[in-house]
């Protein structure tokens, strides 16, 4: 909390460019690591671990979408489709070729990246709302293709049973065992995204977001860079899809429909566009929201409606709150939860002498 820079003198550029230049930041990260890697699995039950698993999966997807929407300003409403590409690629590889997770994960990501770049090709010519519609079309086209191609979807039900990931001979069967598997991938995804956005590639994304013309004049190949953004973003989405498939134990297109795309967009907007931390906040927030709503409604909802109607009400209530929150955030804090966090930090930077 006490984020103070004074008294720390950096003597090399390398130290100045570190991810966490201040000791307090490094301690905080170690603390977070200890909490998630040691304390959580030790103290929490399987139900709570499964929630964290869901968050870890969402973090990867949100990071990917934020790289595209938040950093490069290329909107995509077809992200769930890229996830399904990853999911079905991995499921087919795992069932038909019996491949382990350390091949299916990157393979699912790579396949999604390929499809994502294909969808990104129009981005050179069309911008903003028009690109949004193009990616929306991609969502439906990909969904339809997967659904109607038995070799991909595995039959009429369009779902493939996914074998459990095996880690050095240990089958990760339950949520507690999957926990480490998913959270390590999420951690790699976070560090990778942080590195990406502070390097040459990430800077050229931001250049395109802020000033496309100037980006071109300083020698950035705009088309190529946009395609890279689509590729990386879809890679993340694909990996997210594979993670979800391992989590559920089944690949099913119904988990990757338009509403999922919207969910991820909401994560990115509420969390904070153009912020890695924001993606994490957004993923936590949107994943926990329905759970929190259900808990609250189950305890107080019976006052207003009878038990039978409650399930119905909860489902609708989620959508209402969801829409309301997006509007509130767009008006009150367009930079999202990450900006709120930033404000709190800035306040404590000078606290108690705020001038």
């Amino acid at each position, binding site marked *: 909390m006490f984020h103070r820079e004074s008294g720390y003198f950096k003597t*090399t*550029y*390398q130290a100045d*460019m570190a991810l966490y230049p201040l000791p307090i930041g490094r301690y905080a990260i170690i603390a977070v690591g200890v909490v998630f890697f040691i304390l959580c699995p030790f103290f929490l039950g399987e139900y709570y671990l499964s929630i964290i698993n869901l968050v870890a999966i969402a973090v990867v997807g949100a990071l990917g979408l934020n790289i595209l929407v938040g950093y490069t300003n290329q909107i995509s409403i077809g992200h769930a489709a890229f996830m399904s590409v990853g999911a079905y690629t991995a499921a087919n590889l795992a069932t038909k070729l019996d491949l382990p997770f350390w091949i299916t994960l990157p393979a699912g990501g790579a396949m999604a990246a390929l499809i994502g770049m294909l969808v990104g090709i129009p981005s050179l010519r069309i911008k903003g709302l028009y690109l949004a519609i193009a990616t929306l079309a991609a969502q439906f086209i990909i969904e339809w293709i997967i659904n109607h191609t038995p070799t991909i979807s595995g039959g009429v039900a369009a779902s493939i049973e996914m074998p459990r990931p095996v880690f050095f001979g240990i089958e990760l069967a339950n949520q507690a065992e999957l926990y480490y598997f998913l959270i390590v991938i999420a951690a790699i995804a976070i560090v*990778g995204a942080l*590195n*990406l956005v*502070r*390097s*040459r*590639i*990430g*800077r*050229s994304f*931001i*250049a395109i*977001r*802020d*000033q496309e*013309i*100037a*980006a*071109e*004049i*300083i*020698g*950035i*190949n*705009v088309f190529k860079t946009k395609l*890279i953004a689509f*590729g*990386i973003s879809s890679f993340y989405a694909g990996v997210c899809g594979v993670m979800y498939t391992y989590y559920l134990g089944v690949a099913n297109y119904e988990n990757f429909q338009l509403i999922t795309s919207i969910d991820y967009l909401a994560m990115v907007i509420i969390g904070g566009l*153009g912020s890695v931390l924001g993606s994490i906040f957004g993923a936590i927030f949107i994943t926990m929201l329905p759970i929190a709503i259900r808990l609250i409604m189950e305890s107080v909802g019976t006052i207003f409606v009878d038990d039978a109607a409650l399930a119905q009400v909860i489902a609708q209530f989620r959508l209402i709150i969801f829409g309301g929150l997006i509007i509130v955030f767009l008006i009150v804090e367009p930079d999202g939860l990450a900006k709120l966090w930033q404000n709190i930090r800035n306040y404590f930077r000078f606290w108690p002498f705020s001038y």
Partner: protein
Amino acid sequence: MTNTAGPGGGIKLTIEGASKNFGGVRAVVDVGAEIREGEIFAIIGPNGAGKTTMLNMISGFYHPDEGSINFEDHDISHMGPSEIAALGIARTFQNIALFRGLTVLDNLMLGRNVLMKTGVLSAFMYWGAARREEVEHREKCEDIIDFLKLTDLRKTPTGALAYGLQKRVELGRALAAEPQLLLLDEPMAGMNQEEKEDMVRYVLDVNQEWGTTIALIEHDMGVVMDISDHVMVMDMGEKISQGTPDEVRADPKVIEAYLGTTDNKEVA
């Protein structure tokens, strides 16, 4: 950095019979010019004379309908902006085009983007070569930050800077690419006297210390006549005069373009 300044070197940029039409508007008509290595070359003229179109053609935003533009041995008439940037031509804009969300330092680092090589995978890991490259280019950027006296602002987002400083950062971003030819589109527009003096000093320093060839558009005649080695005067898309500042100043056609014809005066 040796002093290689002063005109008289080889020819850096050749424009031959360049024309550009927008629909029925003839923005640039059959203009030819040569920019010599190490000189400061000014393009002047009334509003709408085609100066910025000229610059846009050199930097690759537009392609000449007729004629050609050659930079050193390369025909750049039909190259895209990013290819031309890679050859060593950098520019600034009349209306500032900085990356407003990024810090001064990141803007300069982006200026060096064309010189960097880090790929996606090594950027993802940020280890070894990628990290070394970042540090190496950071050092070069710090040189420019020192040179332009932006030291205390290096971590400030450029959107928060005053106008004059933004212009200076934009110059810095162009310089960061270590250009052979620097195109400045009205670098002193909208500045007060003090800021103008600073900017002139920076432009001269760049030219003299680094030997960078500079082509600039500027409306402040005092500045243009003082610092340029050669001046090209345009009006209605045509080149009406070219030469040293003294020659141009004495050219009756230039006086006509700027002040109107003597006939008109008599009528008035």
